[in-house]
């Protein structure tokens, strides 16, 4: 019906439209990164990293309390989440047909899609409400819950890549199952597990919603996990919706730091797997 020329023309036209979609979709995303650097970089100096916030209206001050807070909260979340996540992943990969593995896999997918704010409500009901005060630990638990299903799934996917012959060779040499799992299977796939864990850390480090009514935020430097604590994402949020120009400046600078942390973690995650391929491939 259509002449070949018309058909070719239409093909070119549609491909052109899709190239346009690339431009349209990528522009706002690049704009965001550009604005962050432009607006945030000017406020980044030594004081920003080493000083505490100053009272509203005064210029200067830093976010040391939030840097420490994010490190503590995310660190505690890793202590809870990584062993459970990695262990669950190894279980799913090593006993793939068992009912528990099938169930865990499915539930991990369900939990992965759960809005982080819902997990925050859960942590509040479970920990904050009975204790009757906000605490950094509740925030860590919420972040750990977000982390566990992610780590479980990536760990399992990575271990599944290990050829069965490797496992059989170790067993044939008289290794027990647990030594095979740990020293052969997990050892081989360690860079992959590190990648999955780093990606999960990158994702939870930027989470704000689960911390809103668990860690709550604070104006002071605190090392107590059972007390409210500041965190970088909370600082961005509170300063962004605040009324002062100085606060907005700090919000941009903090957002830039936050995004650098997230991007460095993501890049490191990819590097970890790449090294694996150059070593073993």
């Amino acid at each position, binding site marked *: 019906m259509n002449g070949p020329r018309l058909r070719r023309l239409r093909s070119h036209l549609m491909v052109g439209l899709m190239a346009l*979609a690339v431009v349209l979709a990528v522009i706002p995303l690049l704009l*965001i990164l550009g604005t962050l650097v432009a607006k945030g970089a000017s406020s980044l100096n030594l004081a920003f990293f080493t000083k505490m916030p100053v009272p509203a209206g005064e210029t200067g001050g830093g976010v040391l309390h939030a840097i420490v807070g994010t490190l503590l909260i995310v660190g505690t979340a890793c202590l809870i989440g990584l062993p459970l996540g990695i262990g669950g992943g190894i279980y799913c990969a090593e006993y793939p047909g068992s009912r528990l593995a099938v169930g865990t896999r499915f*539930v991990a997918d369900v939990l992965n*899609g*759960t809005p982080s704010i819902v997990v925050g409500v859960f942590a509040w009901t479970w920990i904050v409400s009975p204790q009757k005060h906000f605490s950094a630990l509740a925030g860590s638990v919420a972040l750990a819950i977000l982390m*566990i299903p992610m780590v479980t799934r990536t760990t399992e996917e990575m271990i599944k890549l290990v050829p069965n012959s490797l496992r059989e060779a170790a067993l044939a040499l008289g290794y027990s199952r647990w030594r095979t799992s740990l020293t052969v299977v997990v050892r081989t796939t360690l860079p992959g597990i590190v990648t999955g864990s780093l990606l999960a850390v990158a994702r939870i480090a930027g989470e704000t919603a689960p911390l809103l009514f668990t860690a709550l935020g604070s104006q002071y430097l605190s090392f107590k996990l059972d007390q409210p604590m500041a965190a970088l994402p909370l600082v961005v949020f509170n300063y962004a919706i605040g009324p002062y120009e100085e606060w907005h400046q700090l919000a941009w600078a903090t957002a830039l730091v936050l995004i650098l942390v997230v991007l460095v973690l993501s890049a490191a995650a990819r590097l970890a797997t790449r090294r694996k391929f150059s070593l073993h491939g």
Partner: protein
Amino acid sequence: MASSTPASLAGARIGDRVFKGLLTVAALAVPVLLTFLVWELWSGARLAIGRFGLGFLTSSEWDPVSGQFGALPLIFGTLMSSALALLIAVPLSLGVAIFLTEFAPTSIRGPMAFLIELLAAIPSVVYGLWGIFVMIPFLRATVFPFLKDTLGFLPFFQGPIYGPGMLSAAIILSIMVMPYIMSVSREVLLAVPNTQREAAMALGATRWEALTGAVLPYARSGVIGAVILGLGRALGETMAVTMVIGNRHEIAASLFAPGYTMASAIANEFSEAVENIHLSALSYVALSLFVVTVLINAAARLLIWRVARGSGGRSA
């Protein structure tokens, strides 16, 4: 070195049992956590469920002072902002995914895919910050007046332009879900066997015809899965929406008017709520949001699995 004396065999068996026991505990943590999560949400919401029942989901009154709560404006806001966001994001992200798998020069495919993955990692609160200080002033000065002038006869584009509102939330949401839809649908398209393309081209199809006739039908359920996954993200998205939607318990026809979503109402009111019934109503909202996202994600997973297992490709 493992020798096969009975003693070391017994040791290995104990080691195996301990090892499996530890792993089982870790694997059990996930289902136990989910059960616990549902239980805690339900027990938190029990008071509100008892007082308002299912009418909670269809009532529009939200008055913490008199203790009357209804979530209809929140549900409306969540559905409306997500639907609008998908309307913008789906064509763009599918265009990008198709272009990157089918047409783009090989040299830019890898870097672009990497860029998209990185963009998916940007924290929500950073999108919100950008939304408040860059996107909203821009929209208020240019796009919104233009829409009002040209399409003002439609009820969606009438009324005062505040800046923060339903349309602003939808636009920021669309920017946020694009990387997800792009990367999942890209993977689905990569899973389509090359023979599909080659067969169509060999029959004389143009590249566009090969795509619509042979590649997309094969990948259809996976692509739909990617879109639904994006929908799940949009429904539960909290911080960026909270920062740009205007936060008002109202259902307005105009997209310029402020609105509210389930997630942002929880984010704003939970730490300030003092009355038990207020907290319980917010937990009820959280429970409803949870149920909706679980259903949506389960549907998406099923569709993506179909392509991955290859049964989605009943020949086109």
